[in-house]
């Protein structure tokens, strides 16, 4: 009896949420067909990070629930790929118009030793005031990179250093499921198209 009821409830729920279920909004992550980016629906990455924002508040993936987080790893002294990716993200937001409001750009520094919260905050906000920068200790940074499968490494130059790192932008749906990897070679327009596909799902 109890089992039956449960089953009926589930079936009823399916009727109401049918569309959502088919589209994968039940938490399962059916593969998506992206035109330009890489489908990461079956990869479990970046779920448990705990980092600090520039206001000193602790942030996890669930802090951004309901939004479509786009995570990029970089450092503020990066001369090329980081500013290019962030400027592209700002363009994507513009292209998406109203829909772009759910896009939450998150910049995670791989250089917490030099990227102070003040510099990070000013740095990301010059691209768009809605962009968020996160920072961890050296150990937390190592952890979060590992969790995302992101490579980063110091390249010593004299008494200073620059950094090499993965330049993929990782996109989660509004339920916190990783969905899409965007290569730095894609244009803002191409990215925006794939992001709309993520939005259709959740």
């Amino acid at each position: 009896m109890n089992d039956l009821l449960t089953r009926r409830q589930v079936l009823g729920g399916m009727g109401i949420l049918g569309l959502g279920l088919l589209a994968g909004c039940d938490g399962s992550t059916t593969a998506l067909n992206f035109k330009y980016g890489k489908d990461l629906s079956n990869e479990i990455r970046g779920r448990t990070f705990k980092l600090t924002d520039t206001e000193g508040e602790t942030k996890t993936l669930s802090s951004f629930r309901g939004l479509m987080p786009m995570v990029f790893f970089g450092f503020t002294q990066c001369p090329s790929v980081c500013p290019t990716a962030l400027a592209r993200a700002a363009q994507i937001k513009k292209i998406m118009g109203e829909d772009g409001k759910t896009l939450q750009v998150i910049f995670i520094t791989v250089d917490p030793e030099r990227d102070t919260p003040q510099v990070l905050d000013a740095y990301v906000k010059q691209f768009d005031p809605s962009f968020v920068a996160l920072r961890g200790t050296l150990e937390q940074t190592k952890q979060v990179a590992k969790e995302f499968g992101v490579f980063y490494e110091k390249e010593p130059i004299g008494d200073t250093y620059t950094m090499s790192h993965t330049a993929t932008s990782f996109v989660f749906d509004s339920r916190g499921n990783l969905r899409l990897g965007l290569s730095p070679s894609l244009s803002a327009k191409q990215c925006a198209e794939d992001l709309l596909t993520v939005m259709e799902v959740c």
Partner: protein
Amino acid sequence: MTALFTKAVSRSLLAVSLLAGVSLSAMAQTRVDDAWVRTTVPGQPSSGAFMRITADADSKLLSVASPVASNVQIHQMSMTNDVMHMGPVDAVALPAGKTVALDPEGYHVMLMGLSGQIKEGDQVPLTLTVENDKGVRETLQVTAPARTMKESMDMGHDHGMAH
């Protein structure tokens, strides 16, 4: 006697080639176009400078100096499987007549140890040292305006990193 004569000839030949070298260096020209420097936010200690260089003889860019930075280096960015690699290079080859771009997608000039914030509209002096295949060096003075990343994207870089 013969040896002496040969010596004299070779000496004059040396003088001629030296003269030729001088006139060549006077003629050798390297052009720099569209130089710009990226603006920084307060406290950001480094930035990048970008430009297009065209040398009329096979040459190489050896170094860049600027009064706004204590350490200026030429770096190369390369992308392998979406991993960005960065590192200094000894020189950038400038093949005769070919325009070489120093842009966010390849070679660029790193300005490290900045003396202050680089603001929009600032004019940043750069001194380039170029050496041609004869070993003759020339220095070029360039003034690069500071641009925000957004501005530089608006100027025709909305196609992503790949050409």
